């Protein structure tokens, strides 16, 4: 378990390492509230070229942040998508300008429940409004204006990042030349809502949580948050992947201890994942972001459903699913493809055969990386040519 000093070090990180813009344009949230003058934290990799045809907006997943590549200056660990983004990688930062913003509701510098509410001079906690994926995406669009990017080469992300890429294209048609929604869904399934509820209940059952007021006391409901993270980690692996990785192997011991310590490697793995997570993430952010995911149903936003959502689209889509992903199944990803087809959209689809489960997009999965590289490079050639005409 981490020391409390360590916890404070991460959660009260130095903000000079974080790029932020102040979003002055009023943003009407789906809950009815209008916000303005809120911070949006972001990071960029590579250089925007003169013709501005090489910008790729990456959307992060539930527990991600804006630090996609290189070393995260806050956690000092590798960026969450270092397998795909960097010099010479599938999304080559020698060629492309990669942008990622911390979602609103998050806890890495963007406007979120742990930020100080100017009205009360205290952290928002549960006074933070319930936000949606559409709110998250709308906030990020302002960043493109700030960076002077009219049209993205590509909008991409996995899991919740994939949902954001779909929402971005539906809300801002023709702001992206291409999009790669990865391992996601156009509406959150009952199973996914149930798993998110499990994570929320774990946090809320921790007495430290105290209806979200823990921040005032400068503590974290780390037991609840760690359990929430463990739930997530189980759902990110496949049954086969987990069996192969851990099986019934014992954790550095010859036999059972006849106790409730972590006898099995899989227990040790979950505990490690859970308790390192609390060092970098705010519990209230998990509540708000999982809620945004649960509320996500693109078909509901448009009369005529999902087909209508993609009607005015010229964006070229590549939908990718993973064969062993039981959280966002191939079937759910294919439903996006079907809707895009029905609306006359331009869509490609590939299912990557792998045992690595939902996590496949984050790990070194060569077939997946080859596919996104092939798509982005060919889209860049096409985009450049079309811009020239």
């Amino acid at each position, binding site marked *: 378990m981490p020391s409390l000093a360590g916890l404070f070090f991460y959660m009260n990180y130095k903000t000079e390492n974080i790029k932020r813009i102040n979003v002055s344009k009023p943003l009407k949230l789906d809950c009815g509230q209008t916000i303005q003058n809120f911070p949006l934290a972001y990071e960029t990799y590579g250089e925007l070229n003169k013709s501005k045809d090489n910008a790729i907006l990456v959307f992060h997943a539930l527990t991600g942040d804006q630090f996609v590549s290189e070393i995260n200056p806050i956690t000092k660990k590798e960026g969450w998508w270092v397998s795909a983004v960097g010099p010479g990688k599938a999304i080559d930062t020698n060629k492309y300008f990669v942008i990622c913003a911390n979602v609103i509701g998050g806890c890495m510098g963007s406007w979120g429940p742990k930020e100080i509410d100017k009205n009360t001079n205290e952290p928002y906690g549960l006074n933070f409004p319930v936000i949606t994926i559409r709110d998250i995406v709308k906030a990020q669009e302002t960043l493109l204006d700030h960076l002077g990017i009219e049209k993205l080469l590509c909008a991409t992300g996995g899991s919740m990042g994939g949902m954001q890429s779909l929402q971005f294209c539906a809300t801002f048609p023709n702001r992206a030349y291409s999009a790669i929604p990865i391992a996601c869904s156009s509406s959150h399934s009952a199973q996914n809502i149930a798993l998110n509820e499990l994570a929320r209940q774990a946090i809320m059952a921790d007495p430290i949580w105290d209806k979200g007021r823990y921040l005032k006391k400068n503590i974290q409901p780390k037991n609840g948050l760690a359990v929430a993270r463990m739930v997530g980690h189980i759902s990110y692996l496949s049954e086969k992947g987990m069996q192969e990785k851990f099986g019934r192997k014992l954790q550095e011991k010859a036999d059972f201890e006849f106790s409730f310590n972590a006898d099995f490697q899989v227990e040790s793995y979950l505990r490690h994942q859970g308790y390192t997570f609390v060092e970098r993430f705010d519990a209230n952010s998990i509540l708000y972001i999982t809620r945004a995911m649960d509320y996500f149903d693109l078909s509901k936003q448009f009369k005529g459903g999902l087909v209508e959502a993609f009607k005015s689209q010229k964006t070229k889509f590549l939908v990718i699913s993973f064969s062993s992903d039981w959280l966002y199944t191939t079937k759910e990803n294919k439903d996006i493809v079907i809707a895009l*087809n029905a609306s006359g959209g*331009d*869509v*490609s*689809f*590939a299912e*990557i*055969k792998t045992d690595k489960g939902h996590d496949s997009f984050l790990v070194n999965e060569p077939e997946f990386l080859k*596919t996104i590289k092939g798509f982005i490079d060919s889209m860049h050639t*096409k985009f450049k040519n079309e811009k020239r005409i």
Partner: protein
Amino acid sequence: MKREFKIIADLLPKNSRVLDVGCGDGTLMEFLSKEKKIDVRGLEIEEEKVKICISKGLSVIEGNAETELDQFPDKSFDYVVLSQTLQAFYNPENVLSHLLRIGKASIVSIPNFGYWKVRTNLLLFGKMPITKSLPYNWYNTPNLHMCSIKDFFHFCINKKIKLEKILGINKSKISKINLSNLEYKNLFSEVGIFLIS
């Protein structure tokens, strides 16, 4: 590129919308897109080939034509192309009705089981035919429903499918097929290409 693809390409007007079912590595798609400015989409069952298409900038969906054609709306394409795959489906009749539903017209090519080399193989040697367009053994062939040009011709007439154009190809030439030369062309064509609607 296969000669058959060039012939199919010639049948397709510029700037049309085409769906290539079983598009393979996208050779035909690439040609149609570059040379004829055709807005072309593909459906392919093999993951490896889908990836090749994607890296060429072609829009291809990984999927099984036998079960996944219903995702395409009625008349969403001008033409649907199916090259030498009809015979490999469990239910070619169903696939064909989808092709005609999705496209305003359809181009279907078939390896001709009525070709003389095929006939002699069976007749003289009493063995399942192995030819250039039918290179498999009986135990490993993906071809489940073989037919001849004549079979397909009569099938279309029975099903009230309009035969717009029929071409027979063999090593030396391409020829038009109609009712009057059907018997002869059925014997001397290795592959039949049907434009139907």
